[in-house]
């Protein structure tokens, strides 16, 4: 069980421009490496960060043209968990009303996109989505695990 103490915190403010997610993924990699997370788990974090940033970029319709990505290293004596929050100030959405994509339907559908949240849930250990008129926060965590 991870302790709740925040040992280190870094926040990026990223412009809403194509490929900004790569910058967030690089920071995620550097911080996860500093926690001695295994390479496979780091890759999973990186991919989830990319998806959360793309969701914010594509769906938030935010007017302030920035998203904020906060990385928190959590633990007591040693780093135990990496918590990442991707925040936008866009129009928000109802997570409960997002239809889960199903490959059998998507393969025939005109619109084949809409996989981001499913991928994030599949790759991270904990995921919470808070969304409303003030914007959206995707909070996702990965335990460091054994190296």
């Amino acid at each position, binding site marked *: 069980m991870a302790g709740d103490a925040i040992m280190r915190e870094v926040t990026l403010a990223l412009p809403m421009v194509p*490929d900004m997610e790569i910058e967030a*993924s690089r920071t995620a990699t550097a911080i996860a490496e500093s926690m001695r997370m295994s390479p*496979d788990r780091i*890759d999973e974090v990186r991919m989830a960060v990319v998806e959360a940033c793309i969701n914010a970029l594509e769906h938030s319709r935010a007017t302030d043209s920035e998203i904020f990505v906060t990385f928190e290293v959590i633990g007591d004596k040693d780093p135990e968990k990496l918590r990442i929050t991707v925040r936008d100030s866009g129009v928000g959405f109802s997570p409960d009303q997002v239809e889960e*994509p199903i*490959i059998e339907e998507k393969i*025939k559908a005109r619109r084949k996109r809409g996989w981001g949240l*499913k991928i994030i849930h599949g*790759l991270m250990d904990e995921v919470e989505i808070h969304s409303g008129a003030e914007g959206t926060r995707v909070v996702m965590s990965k335990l460091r695990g054994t190296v």
Partner: protein
Amino acid sequence: MTDSLNVSVDRRDGMAVIYTEGYINNQGGEEIARVAYKLLDDGVKVLLLNLGGTKIVNSIGISILIEIIEKMIEIEGKLGFCCLTPTIEKTFQIMGLAQYAPIFPNEEAAVAQLRG
């Protein structure tokens, strides 16, 4: 900031291997689709996507790969993937892609299976 995608092709008897190197985002996915559709126009019906040089993909790029899978089903062709990183393979499994396009650990196994 962009990690652009390089795509190359090795055509062999009746099939083609498409090699990718770099980030498969929307532009990368479109480049793969352009190359794949050109091969289909040339009569190639068996494609192997060797993603050994790709360490990161995003869901928009993968959606374009789903379009290619749909096209392969339409023409009754075959499409497979090989040399995926564990995370890309896990992502494809999460999405269910493997039931339409098999995933192989290496190129030799993929070529043998797809040609069979």
